[in-house]
């Protein structure tokens, strides 16, 4: 039975690795300028984790195969080097591995989070609420009108609680339920939630950030490929969580300009 178990472990380990190696189910292709280090980090981690996984499972299987069939009179043997070899091996191999992963990973993380948005990044505001995202563009004046929480109303379609009658900055603000952005232009996304926790995840864009009620958070990114992508909520926000999504369209500058003009006319 030991041999059968050993074979089972090896078969499971190899079958488990095949979809990973073949990328049967894998991350959507990257369309961001900042995503390359993430993808590279993913591949490196996958290689190191994959080798650790296969090596450990195979070692386990081999030892079970061999030592579940020890002869009755056999003497107990000790692994060459004993526990010291194990501890040193773990510290040297895994220690180096994790420190390298940590350092390169921190670099990838830093390249995204420790670089401020450029001065000409296009600001877009996104508000999350049960169970929809709404977006706001500042209009020609480049300024968002202030938010008045007491004016926020789904019923009146005033999703952001803006007062376009009295606030000069709010007059030209454009509110939409879908978001469009120009390709190859940096976007500075200003995020807030009006109710509970939500999240903003676009796999292709390599962006993922929670909305935290009480905090104004921001992200910046540049999309490099024209297309229509989905924004999904990943923070459990209530019964409609699964259906909280919006489309993000990456357009050429000309298409974007005409789209925004159309949206402005609809306000």
């Amino acid at each position, binding site marked *: 039975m030991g041999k059968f178990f050993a074979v089972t*472990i090896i078969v499971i380990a190899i079958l488990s690795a095949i979809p990973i190696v073949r990328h049967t189910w894998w991350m959507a292709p990257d369309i961001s300028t900042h995503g390359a280090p993430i993808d590279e980090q993913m591949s490196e981690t996958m290689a190191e984790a994959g080798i650790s996984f296969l090596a450990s499972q195979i070692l*386990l299987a081999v030892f079970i195969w061999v*030592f579940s069939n020890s002869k009755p009179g056999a003497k107990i043997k000790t692994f060459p080097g004993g526990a010291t070899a*194990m501890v040193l091996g773990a510290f040297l191999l895994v220690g180096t591995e994790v420190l390298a992963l940590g350092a390169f990973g921190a670099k990838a993380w830093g390249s995204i989070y420790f670089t401020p948005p450029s001065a000409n990044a296009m600001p877009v505001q996104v508000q999350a609420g049960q169970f929809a995202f709404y977006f706001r563009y500042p209009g020609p004046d480049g300024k968002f009108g202030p938010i008045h929480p007491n004016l926020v109303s789904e019923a009146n379609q005033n999703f952001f609680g803006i007062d376009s009658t009295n606030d000069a900055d709010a007059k030209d603000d454009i509110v939409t339920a879908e978001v469009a952005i120009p390709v190859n232009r940096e976007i500075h996304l200003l995020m807030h939630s009006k109710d509970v*926790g939500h999240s903003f995840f676009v796999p292709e864009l390599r962006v993922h950030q929670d909305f935290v009620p009480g905090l104004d958070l921001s992200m910046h990114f540049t999309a490099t490929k024209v297309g229509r992508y989905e924004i999904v909520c*990943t923070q459990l926000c209530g019964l*409609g969580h699964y259906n909280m999504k919006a489309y993000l369209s990456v357009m050429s500058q000309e298409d974007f300009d005409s789209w925004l003009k159309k949206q402005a006319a609809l306000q």
Partner: protein
Amino acid sequence: MHDTAHTAHQAPASFIRKHVFSLDHKVIGKQYYGLAFVAVLVGMVLSWLMRIHLGWTNYAIPGLHLLSANGAPGNVMTPEYYLQLMTMHATIMVFFVLTTAPFAAFGNYFLPIQVGAEDMPFPRFNMMSFWVTLTAFLALIASFFVSDGPTLGGWTQYVPLSAVGAVGGPGEGAGVVLWATSIAIFCVGQLLGSLNFITTTLDMRTKGLSLWRLPLSTWGWFITSIMGLTAFAVLMPACILLILDHVAGTSFFVPSNTIINDQLQPHTGGSTLLWQHLFWFFGHPEVYIAIVPGMGIVSHVLITNMRRPMLSHRTLVYSFGALAVLSYMVYGHHMFVSGMNPVSSIAFSFPTLIITIPSTIVVLIWLGSLYGAKLRINSASLFSLGFISMFISGGVSGFFLAQPSLDIMLHATYFVVGHFHMVMGVAAMFGIFAGTYFWFPKMYGRMMNETLGKIHFWITFVGAYCIFMPFHYLGLAGNVRRYQAFVVDYMQPLIPVHRFITVAALVTGCAQLIFVYNLFYSRFQGEVAPANPWEATSLEWSTPSSPPPFDNFGGKLPVVYHDPYQYGVEGSNGDYVMQDSPEQIESARDEA
């Protein structure tokens, strides 16, 4: 340390004091096991319902409306009812199974015996810890029966969703209050239990039993109880604050300007991240609270079946300790995309990566000890070896989740679900199974059926991989967790994978009925167990009978002469010498 027995309490005569309100740690251990047994069956049925719904969203599950007329009109699960069942599945499994069975159940039963004591120092606290835990379970189950059902907020109960009250959605009013009350009460039980475990280990050891002579299972429970003492002590006040936000008009967790259903909520100044910090300061150690007892049990079972001690007893103990200490320094990896300062993410990333070092040492010591062993294959050892395989598989995905840059792609996806199910769910369950097959003869004086045990193992081992390995693939493809249906365009092609998982989950779940049958059949009809069926060395096999008498050692406490695992030696009984045997060993392996 005690060298003579002095009976702290007499054997009870009445049925109630013997079997219900018992002060005997063995009865309390069995009560905990019974509670975990009921809880795991409930949790498993909930997972079946969830899996069926995820595979075939509009399928009418016969009889489901009986569970909740509102939650399943026409037997089809509503989106909110899916989330409610999911929350209950997770809460029941994490608290009432994975914490209760390997730690409270086996620990209560065997820790005092393995230290050569006749009971714990505070038997009344011990009795109270079980009854408090049972009360917590009943409070949680009660939420099925309140008007809008249990909470839907997930076992993490992120605020402000869980703090705003019924306006947040079904179950977010009374459901959350019951949930938080249940968990706060549960914490009291664990604190009482932990105090007992710590004092028993430190103060009740019998003559000759130095700390280094404790079996690894006892080390597992001892280290876990220290973790429990600190982790549950943080969760309990967090739950109390959450209850106050509901019933006392406080705003610990709800910030100003929260607008739900176009209504400005009557809260100001609360902090969303405060809850996450408090919860995960408990939540991450909790992972180790679930798994370290399993590591101890599996080490104990494996050594007996390898007929040799571990390559290094002390290195394993130090590694368990390192896991416990580091488990408090890594919790922020649950919050990489939470809006926490990105510098903190890096600060939490490194300890998370470093925790793989003691984990690797543990695995390598296990593997290295297998080398040159005389491995006996039985149900207990199979589940122990399966534990190692699962722990490796669940552990390597930790490399990914420790890195904030990769968390961008994997956070809140099925990759995370696969990771924690394998490493703390399945592995811990395998620890429970290994412990059950191994200690059943001691607990009931009868052997479990080996053939049924092996069938149970094979289906469970292969089934668990079929269920949880594909979770990782789904996560890589961006499949978000906690969705009741997959209406997002890019997730729809993943539905066949979900169906495969559902079928695997149903088959694997049904295989657990073999275990249930074996447990009950063997309890009454099993072959009568010899005194030491596994030819083991530790003190639980030195009691005068199986199950042990009320005072464990029949009025005379054992004296310990050896390290816990004297295998591969030339003893008078064979290749082992019991810990309390005064015989001299030629090839002694004493490290202490």
